[in-house]
């Protein structure tokens, strides 16, 4: 039976075939692959966290197949000819007694030609001890025959070389022994083959004692005797001084022999090999001293001979000598040999015991040294010694491990990892485990070497091993920030899993690397491409909850729905709810402020229509929003693409659930119980899976689910949305879905920036009649792109956006709409999208996703979080739809246009009781219904006063803020309802006009009584003309003022035409100073040109208008002065409807105390009667409204080319109640040789206030203080003539009398008489005060050196209203009055 498994035993192998390196490699490969197959089972499990790896002891963290592998590895290098351990010491020849010619059998079983080469070529001693065993089975019969055979065996082979073994394999009893009795020796015996299962107990005993006395009586004596022989020979030849010398001599002679790599060939008879054998035997028999001495001796010789292999072997033995342990090694070994087991089988525990012994040993240095030597020598031998080097390294490693020098062990492992990738892979892996076991564990090296070995494994396609090692490494990098390495690991593990066909695991790993914004663009592309490739290879679509790509930033989630608030245009929409409840939109508050005085307060409305809907649970209602069936809820979700490569996502859609009534919300099949979120998430996945399976392409089948709530995907094309929503009831469902289908085509483009434009194109070719207002989806999506940008605040992405390239969009926003069709409760659970057509990602919109953000937010948001996505669907209502026609996008300041507001109500139910409010009445005014069909510029022309009166009525109606449409105005059935509006661009800039319309439902059964339509338009107003007015008192005449107007054309290109001037006030008349031609030499004012002209502003209270010489188109309101030469232009009536209304708002808007220039560009003046006299100052303020006409082509048909601008509250004088005038001779001739000259002057003082004033004239006899210069307006400066005149006087004085000046430093003239006069002046009265001036020397003098102190004596009774603006006393500096006194000869 020993022969039977001969092929498996090493001896048998040696006998049968030589172990070539190729064979060894192949065998190892089989081992590794076998191991790989075995541990594929745990490939699905997650890699353990690194802590647990650290805590696990060496035994389980090391893969179990390593020791088997090492054993195999060692076994491959057994039977080398240069060491005698595996040389057969004895051979057991067994023949069954059933054999008819046992003797011959024995003979030819052992004849030389069957012996292996090592024996034949003499590397081993062929004369090995033979033992002949005859096996007899008792079942074959009585042992007599066997005994007789034994007898003549004895005769032929010798007496004690033969034995008989009687066994009985009893047929019935498969007596299985509790443990395989060969187990301690034959560790690699597979348990399946039950060795010796036929043997009874006594058979076993017989076997063992045969072995015992075979080894004890035969082999050991044989070996000892051989040792003795060899020892004598060796000592004879080599011991002693003479021999040494002779030996050297003799070697000198031998040196010239050519040396190949492994030195001269030593036959067994050569002295060296005999010494070696001697040493080995002694070693086996534990005579270590002898062995060591022999090895030392031998090593010197070998060194001399440069027989490196042997030398290394000897070094090994020297080490062994240190390591060898007591115990019946020899028996075991020889027994092993006989049993045909390899000597090296139990190397490990042999060494372990040896090393435990080694601990006590003092000479570990020698061990290190010899190991080092052996190893290096083997390595130096190159490939032939490779395997021996490996074996030696393994032993060394074991030695180091047993001394806990794991780092050194690892380095040794690294050294023995040779060129062969597979081999080095295993070695590196073992090295990595050594690093792990090192104290302290060197985790990073552990991971690194694992990765290295993994690469090598992969190189020799041991994929499973590669995955195992990588996963081990992954546990190191799991929670670190070494993203690149981790991504590399995840990526490759994923790829390899895919290679193994385990695609779901592969995708699980691949998903980790998707969000790699820090990687280079190429890497991102690679990751993405392979990922998509893997996913597509699987054929089915994977569903990933919370897919990383693209990133949904919940914070940018906006939900727009229409309850009682409906929106005409997307521009008007404002976020009615978002998850974080940050009311970022000031608009909503603005709308509310607009509507607050139109609509009944929200609570009351809720109540009354809640009562009408009793079956709804109030609580449910209160915490959920209301939306109307058939009207879309629009959800803006910002998607962020972290990569630099562009990804395409498709089929973005909402995941909604709908339950018919509120109370069966919870038990609903795919409903979400909002209390426990995990369950909710799972549920959602389930529900959305079957949902996804139906709606993966938007066919009609989608409708089946969507009888709850139909998901529709909408891109930014809002026009399409509105039409979709609008037509919803009217059209058959098919049409609606056709629209959706077209939508999907676009939807692929949402993400990539260059494709945005194509999105626009696609839109246009779908809807050729898009209005320009709606034709920029690209810009629209830019707008939505902006808010997403701040979300990428983490450093990586910040760094990325610094070098973000054009073809990648960091973020985009998709707008999704869900359109419920039946009443009930609609809950928007999440959003799902399809990444590159094959991977479906879900993201829950439940607020718990953003819980921590909300927690950062203030408290009160908490309760309403969950409600934002829950909608109470009520039955469909009429919905107004409004458009503002003829509204230009850009307009010049002051342009007056007529717009028409068109309202549409698609449904049959009428809406009534319309109210409207406009945010900027300054810009937009409600007209009268008859304004629609009048021709606009003509209607402004002068009419008789009757027409004007009822215009006033209309005006009154407009002046209150809410405009009530007439009672009979009801809109229904799609018949448009048109109402005129007046537009006047009041101020330059971008103006956003908000119009809100309130209307009530026709049928009272409607859940909502009223709704509001909100319209929002943005208007760009360009500056056209700048006009500044300056009013200055004219010193020459009382009650008359100079009005200077400076006009500058601020436009780029357009030129404005000058028409006419009208003054419309009783008290104040305006007249030209010069004839028209001098004022306006050219008809029009072209771009950049400036113009200024003077007018005379005259108070007509004292002077009858009849005296006015202004060209009068006489009417009650005032006078119109036509500027411009052509009389064809009609004179416009500034009291007619739009003008006066706009002017009213201007008056309200502009601040009352303005001294600054009022921008305006009109050449028609009107001075408006200020209706409240008392709240003005003591003198009037004048308002200007300015209308102009643009020159040249009228581009737009609906522009009437009338510009009006309003300048209000321009003060006529500085704020003093009095005005005065000094009158007297301007030139006096006098002879100063005589006396000084007296001059009489008169001062006329007028009290323009409505109360009594006491005035105190105070004359100062000093050179007057310089007049305070009137402020510069529009680049106008006063050159102070005053200084020049003083210079003149000094000149005159210099030329004239010196002494008089030198006589005294007093001024050349004094006021004589009382230096102060006091007068009392009634309201609106004039008086005269005489003044006397004494002049001493000729010259020109300025008599402005007096002041008038005035103080109100009685405040009038209704002064309280204007009390803020009036002062009770003041001081006025005197006007300059020049008088020239000449010497009279």
């Amino acid at each position, binding site marked *: 039976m020993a022969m039977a498994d001969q092929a498996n035993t090493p001896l048998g192998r040696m006998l049968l075939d030589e172990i070539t390196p190729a064979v060894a490699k192949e065998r190892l490969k089989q081992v590794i692959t076998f191991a790989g197959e075995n541990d594929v089972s745990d490939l699905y499990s997650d890699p353990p966290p690194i802590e647990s790896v650290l805590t696990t002891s060496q035994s389980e963290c090391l893969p179990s197949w390593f020791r088997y592998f090492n054993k195999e590895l060692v076994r491959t290098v057994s039977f080398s000819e240069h060491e005698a351990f595996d040389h057969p010491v004895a051979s057991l020849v067994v023949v069954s007694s059933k054999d008819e010619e046992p003797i011959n059998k024995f003979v030819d079983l052992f004849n030389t030609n069957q012996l292996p080469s090592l024996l034949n070529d003499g590397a081993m001693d062929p004369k090995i001890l033979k033992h002949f065993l005859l096996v007899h089975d008792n079942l074959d019969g009585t042992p007599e025959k066997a005994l007789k055979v034994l007898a003549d065996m004895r005769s032929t082979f010798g007496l004690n070389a033969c034995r008989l073994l009687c066994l009985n394999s009893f047929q019935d009893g498969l007596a299985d022994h509790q443990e395989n009795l060969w187990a301690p020796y034959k560790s690699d015996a597979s348990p399946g083959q039950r060795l010796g299962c036929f043997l009874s107990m006594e058979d076993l005993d017989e076997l063992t004692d045969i072995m015992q006395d075979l080894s004890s009586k035969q082999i050991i004596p044989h070996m000892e005797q051989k040792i003795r022989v060899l020892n004598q020979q060796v000592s004879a030849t080599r011991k002693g001084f003479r021999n040494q010398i002779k030996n050297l001599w003799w070697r000198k002679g031998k040196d010239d022999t050519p040396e190949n790599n492994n030195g001269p060939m030593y036959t067994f008879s050569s002295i060296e090999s005999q010494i070696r054998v001697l040493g080995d035997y002694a070693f086996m028999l534990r005579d270590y001293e002898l062995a060591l001495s022999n090895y030392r001796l031998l090593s010197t010789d070998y060194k001399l001979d440069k027989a490196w292999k042997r030398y290394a072997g000897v070094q090994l033995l020297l080490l062994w000598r240190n390591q060898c342990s007591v115990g019946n090694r020899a028996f075991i070994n020889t027994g092993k040999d006989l049993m045909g087991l390899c000597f090296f089988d139990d190397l490990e525990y042999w060494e372990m015991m040896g090393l435990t012994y080694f601990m006590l040993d003092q000479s570990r240095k020698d061990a290190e040294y010899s190991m080092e030597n052996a190893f290096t020598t083997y390595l130096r031998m190159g490939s032939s010694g490779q395997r021996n080097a490996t074996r030696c390294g393994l032993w060394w490693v074991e030695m180091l491990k047993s001394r806990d020098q794991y780092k050194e062990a690892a380095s040794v492992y690294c050294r023995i990892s040779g060129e062969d990738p597979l081999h080095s892979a295993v070695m590196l892996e073992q090295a990595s485990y050594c*690093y792990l076991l090192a104290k*302290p564990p*060197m*985790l*990073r*090296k552990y*991971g*690194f070497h694992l*990765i290295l070995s993994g690469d090598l494994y992969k190189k020799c396609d041991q994929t499973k091993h590669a995955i195992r090692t990588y996963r081990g490494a992954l546990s190191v990098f799991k929670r*670190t*920030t*070494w993203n*690149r*390495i981790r991504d*590399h690991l995840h990526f490759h593990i994923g790829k390899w899993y895919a290679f193994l066909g385990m695609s779901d695991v592969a995708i699980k790993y691949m998903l980790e690397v998707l969000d790699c914004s820090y990687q*280079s663009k*190429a890497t991102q592309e690679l990751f993405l491409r392979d990922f998509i490739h893997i996913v597509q290879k699987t054929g089915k679509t994977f569903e990933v909850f919370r897919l990383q790509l693209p990133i949904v930033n919940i914070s940018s989630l906006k939900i727009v729905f229409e309850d009682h608030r409906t929106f005409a245009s997307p521009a008007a929409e404002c976020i009615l709810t978002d998850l974080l409840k940050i009311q970022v939109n000031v608009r909503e508050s603005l709308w509310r402020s607009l509507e607050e005085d139109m609509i009944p307060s929200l609570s009351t409305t809720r109540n009354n229509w809640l009562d009408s809907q009793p079956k709804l649970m109030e609580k449910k209602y209160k915490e959920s929003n209301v939306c109307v069936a058939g009207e879309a809820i629009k959800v803006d979700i910002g998607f962020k693409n972290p990569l630099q490569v562009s990804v395409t996502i498709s089929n973005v859609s909402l995941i909604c659930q709908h339950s018919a009534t509120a109370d069966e919300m919870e038990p609903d099949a795919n409903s979400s119980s909002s209390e426990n979120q995990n369950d909710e998430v799972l549920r959602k996945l389930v529900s959305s899976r079957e949902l996804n399976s139906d709606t993966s392409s938007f066919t009609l089948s989608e409708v089946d689910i969507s009888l709850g709530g139909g998901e529709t995907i909408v891109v930014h094309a809002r026009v399409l949305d509105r039409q979709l929503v609008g037509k919803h009831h009217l059209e058959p469902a098919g049409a609606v879905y056709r629209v959706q289908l077209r939508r999907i085509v676009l939807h692929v483009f949402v993400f990539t920036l260059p494709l945005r434009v194509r999105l626009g194109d696609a839109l246009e070719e779908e809807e050729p009649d898009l209005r320009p207002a709606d034709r920029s989806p690209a810009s629209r999506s830019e707008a939505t792109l902006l808010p997403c940008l701040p979300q990428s605040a983490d*450093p*990586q992405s*910040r*760094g990325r956006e*610094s070098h973000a390239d054009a073809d990648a969009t960091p973020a985009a926003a998709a707008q999704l709409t869900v359109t419920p069709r039946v009443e009930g409760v609609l809950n928007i659970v999440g959003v799902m999208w399809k990444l590159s057509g094959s991977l479906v990602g879900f993201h829950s919109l439940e607020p718990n996703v953003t819980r921590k953000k909300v927690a950062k937010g203030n408290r009160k948001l908490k309760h309403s979080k969950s409600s934002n996505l829950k909608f109470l669907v009520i039955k469909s209502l009429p919905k107004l739809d409004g458009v503002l026609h003829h509204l230009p996008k850009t307009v010049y300041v002051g342009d007056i246009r007529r717009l028409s507001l068109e309202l549409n109500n698609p449904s049959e139910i009428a809406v009534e009781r319309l109210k409207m409010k406009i945010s900027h009445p300054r810009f937009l005014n409600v007209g009268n219904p008859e304004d629609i069909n009048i021709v606009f510029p003509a209607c402004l022309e002068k009419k008789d006063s009757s027409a004007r009166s009822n215009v006033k009525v209309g005006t009154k109606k407009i002046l209150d803020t809410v405009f009530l449409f007439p009672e009979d105005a009801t809109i229904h059935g799609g018949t448009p309802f048109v109402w005129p509006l007046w537009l006047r661009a009041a101020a330059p800039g971008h103006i956003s006009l908000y119009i809100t319309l309130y209307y009530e439902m026709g049928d009272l059964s409607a859940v909502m009584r009223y709704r509001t339509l909100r319209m929002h338009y943005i208007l760009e107003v360009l500056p056209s003309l700048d006009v500044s007015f300056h009013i200055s008192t004219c010193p020459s005449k009382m009650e008359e003022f100079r009005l200077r107007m400076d006009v500058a054309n601020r436009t780029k290109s357009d030129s404005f035409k000058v028409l006419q001037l009208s003054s419309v006030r009783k008290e104040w008349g305006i007249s030209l100073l010069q004839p028209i031609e001098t004022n306006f030499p050219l008809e029009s004012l072209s771009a950049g040109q400036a113009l200024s002209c003077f007018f005379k502003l005259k108070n007509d209270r004292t002077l009858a208008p009849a005296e006015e010489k202004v060209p009068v188109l006489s009417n009650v309101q005032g006078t119109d002065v036509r500027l411009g030469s052509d009389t064809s232009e009609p004179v416009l009536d500034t009291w007619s409807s739009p003008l006066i209304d706009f002017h009213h708002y201007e008056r309200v808007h502009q601040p009352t105390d303005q001294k600054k220039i009022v921008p305006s560009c009109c050449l028609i003046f009107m001075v408006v009667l200020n209706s409240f006299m008392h709240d003005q100052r003591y003198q009037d303020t004048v308002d200007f409204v300015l209308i102009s006409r643009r020159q040249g082509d009228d581009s737009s048909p609906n522009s009437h080319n009338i510009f009006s601008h309003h300048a209000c509250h321009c003060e006529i004088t500085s704020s003093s109640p009095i005005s005065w005038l000094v009158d007297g001779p301007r030139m006096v001739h006098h002879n100063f040789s005589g006396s000084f000259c007296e001059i009489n002057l008169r001062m006329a003082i007028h009290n323009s206030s409505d109360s009594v004033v006491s005035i105190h004239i105070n004359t100062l006899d000093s050179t007057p203080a310089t007049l305070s210069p009137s402020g510069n307006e529009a680049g106008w400066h006063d050159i102070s003539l005053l200084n020049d005149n003083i210079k003149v006087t000094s000149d005159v004085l210099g030329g004239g009398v010196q002494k008089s000046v030198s006589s005294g430093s007093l001024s050349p003239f004094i006021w004589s008489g009382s230096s102060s006069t006091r007068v009392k002046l009634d309201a609106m009265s004039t008086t005269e005060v005489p003044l006397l001036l004494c002049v001493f020397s000729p010259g020109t003098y300025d008599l402005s050196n007096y002041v008038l102190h005035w103080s109100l004596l009685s405040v009038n009774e209704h002064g309280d209203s204007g009390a803020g603006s009036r002062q009770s006393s003041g001081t006025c500096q005197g006007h300059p009055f020049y008088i020239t006194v000449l010497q009279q000869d």
Partner: protein
Amino acid sequence: MIVCVAVVGHQNNPLYIQSFTEADDALKLHHIVHCSLDVVDERVNNPRKSGPTLNDTFLGLLYPTENYKVYGYLTNTKVKFILVTTDLDVRDADVRNFFRRFHSAYVDAVSNPFHVPGKKITSRTFAERVSTIVKSFGLSSAG
């Protein structure tokens, strides 16, 4: 020439890794730097084998890989600087000098109030300073 320079935070998290080669060997350099951390820990934990003097911030040559030399520097705040170079004869003086300048650059970078401690260093000026330091590496010995 200097192949790679890295700053590793006190939790062994990479704060800044910059490679100065044209080749795309970022991954390999990451591995080298990452492994060198083990040696740094070893040096620190049993300082008898540590650098020239006890507790010197300069840790000296951490380990020679097949064709790189890795030097380490550990600040008082347990921030590690790793220098990977290819030239085989590097004077310690040069490396010390390099690390000194690098340290000052690092300090200026993290003193920026907008820098979040423990986060990656994204300051561009820091990158520029580092590149200049790297360029000037070894020139002192040359000239």
